[in-house]
């Protein structure tokens, strides 16, 4: 590994319906300059609109478009039904799988795999154990500072991946807060998340955008945009940059980071492009830029 950094499109975290997912990935296959695409449902099996057969069809289309494709998996499998679907996926999926829980690591024993950002990797020894056990690449959790990322990347050059775009995934729960916000339970959710392709906005009582509810997951309201840190990340040995899909023109988002990696534009220009592409969203350097600005005042949100 090492050499040219990979641009990775992470899994869609929101409850997009089947047609939308297909259209999205077909467009990515044909138009997006991304190296790796992660498919799969990470948050909730109840919303899975895609069968394995459909994912395979999407994979084929992406591979024809020159992309490497891997399957991501549930971040918090707790119920028997969820474990069964995870076991089936690990049995049936013919390609590389990304683990987001120790359950998946157990099921993938002896097979090369990816480790996603939902597994806690905070220091070198944990990273080393995961690589030794067959991880091809490990995506670090978003909570790490740039200093920590540097140390980890140096200890395993080319094998570390870091999120550079999209909402920061901050928490998981057994409870569906999307359902709860409508007075429902997870068991009787009636697909409460279906109408929020970019998540459900949560504001502070004084009206600042703060968090985003996505089923059992909580994310930041702001989008991470770490183009200003990319040079340092790559210099320290980070091998892949992850872009998380949001409800914006993702082909154009990918193009901006591709241009940055190719040296055609600088981070200022990336930030300007992304500000245009993500109207009404605050962009933040996240933990990589020191402390994230968690609930920007309306004035700051404009700038």
């Amino acid at each position, binding site marked *: 590994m090492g050499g040219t950094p990979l641009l990775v499109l992470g899994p869609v975290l929101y409850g997009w319906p089947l047609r939308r997912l297909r259209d999205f990935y077909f467009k990515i296959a044909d138009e997006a300059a991304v190296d790796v695409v992660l498919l799969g449902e990470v948050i909730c099996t109840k919303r899975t609109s895609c069968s394995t057969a459909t994912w395979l069809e999407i994979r084929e289309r992406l591979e024809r478009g020159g992309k490497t494709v891997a399957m991501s998996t549930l971040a918090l499998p707790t119920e028997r039904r969820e474990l069964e679907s995870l076991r089936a996926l690990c049995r049936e999926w013919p390609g590389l799988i990304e683990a987001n829980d120790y359950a998946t690591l157990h099921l993938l024993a002896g097979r090369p795999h990816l480790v996603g950002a939902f597994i806690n990797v905070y220091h*070198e020894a944990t990273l080393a*154990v*995961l690589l030794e056990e067959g991880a091809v690449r490990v995506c670090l959790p978003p*909570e790490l500072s740039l200093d920590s990322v540097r140390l980890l990347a140096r200890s395993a050059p080319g094998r570390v991946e870091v999120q550079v775009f999209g909402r920061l995934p901050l928490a998981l729960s*057994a409870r569906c807060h999307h359902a709860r916000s409508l007075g429902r*339970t997870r068991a009787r959710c009636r697909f409460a998340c279906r109408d929020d392709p970019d998540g459900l906005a*949560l504001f502070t*009582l004084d009206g600042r955008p703060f968090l985003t509810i996505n089923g059992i997951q909580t994310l930041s309201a702001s989008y991470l945009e770490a183009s200003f840190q990319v040079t340092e990340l790559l210099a320290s040995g980070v091998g892949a940059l992850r872009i998380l899909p949001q409800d914006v023109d993702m082909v154009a988002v990918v193009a901006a980071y591709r241009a940055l990696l190719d040296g055609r534009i600088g981070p200022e220009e990336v930030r300007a492009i992304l500000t245009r592409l993500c109207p009404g969203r605050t962009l933040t350097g996240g933990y990589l830029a020191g402390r994230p600005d968690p609930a920007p005042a309306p004035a700051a949100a404009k700038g």
Partner: protein
Amino acid sequence: MSRLEVVCPAGTPAALEAAVAAGADSVYFGFRDGTNARNFPGLNFSREEAEEAIAHCHRHGVRAMVAVNSYPQAGRAELWQRAVADAHALGADAVILADLGLARWARSRFPHLRLHLSVQASAANPEAIAYWTERAGIRRVVLPRLFSMEDIRTLVPALPVESEVFVFGGLCVMAEGRCMLSSYVTGRSPNLDGVCSPAEWVRYGREGPMLTVRLGDVLIDRIPPGDKAGYPTLCKGCYRVRGRAMRPFEEPASLDLLSRLPELMAVGVRAIKIEGRQRGRAYVERVVRAVRGAAEQAARGRPLDAPDLRTLMEGGRATEGALARGWR
């Protein structure tokens, strides 16, 4: 069927002595640094205090467990390794940890040291627990506070290791160890520093009759006069969603599963745990006595006759958490 082992918190030597006197079977505590999940000012044990605490426990036939359950930070893992090594050297009966690299290090260095998997590892299913058992030699798992009774009933008998269940005290609504809300606002979190919602970030204020609660600049609650406020964590806060003010994550309340002890015992749970290393000795004394009493009643098949502990609870309210019908 043997009685449930009562595992009790100690944030100070005084609380530890109170727990031992009130009937603890085991006591858990941490060292005075960021290596454990209750890294609060004025809490926890120096090495000398730990040595004396472990000796005190052993004199009274009580097991001493040391929590080293935050995540070692890059470049600084030695601090966490030293905590494990010292716990071993001081004669701790078990170390409670959450990090894979640290667990593997502990196992290779001290093969006979008993390792318990912290709730912070969020091992929330049998496959994950099997991973930790096979690859890190875990002997007991502290179950995440997200299971229903039904889940526990199917999970526990199938486990290759002992299980421990939280039955009283604070309640995370998020999966423990999978929550970064605190660091997002304050830069400090349970995983990184062993703190959630650090006290120095909490700011109370007034808006008319309302008490406002902020974490840094972020308004997380407005409390009407007369209402009881719990400790301000982000997951218990009040926010605006779909144009309405609500608590979208959880109400402030404390976990109380004492009435469920007979069921927990029947399905084979080995130990029950009390949260609250940040609590004073009076609290620890009262809760430990009540929980020990309830465990004995459960073992004798007697109906529960537990004292009312609601005055000790967050917001003065009790919840059965994920064990309550419809919680999810």
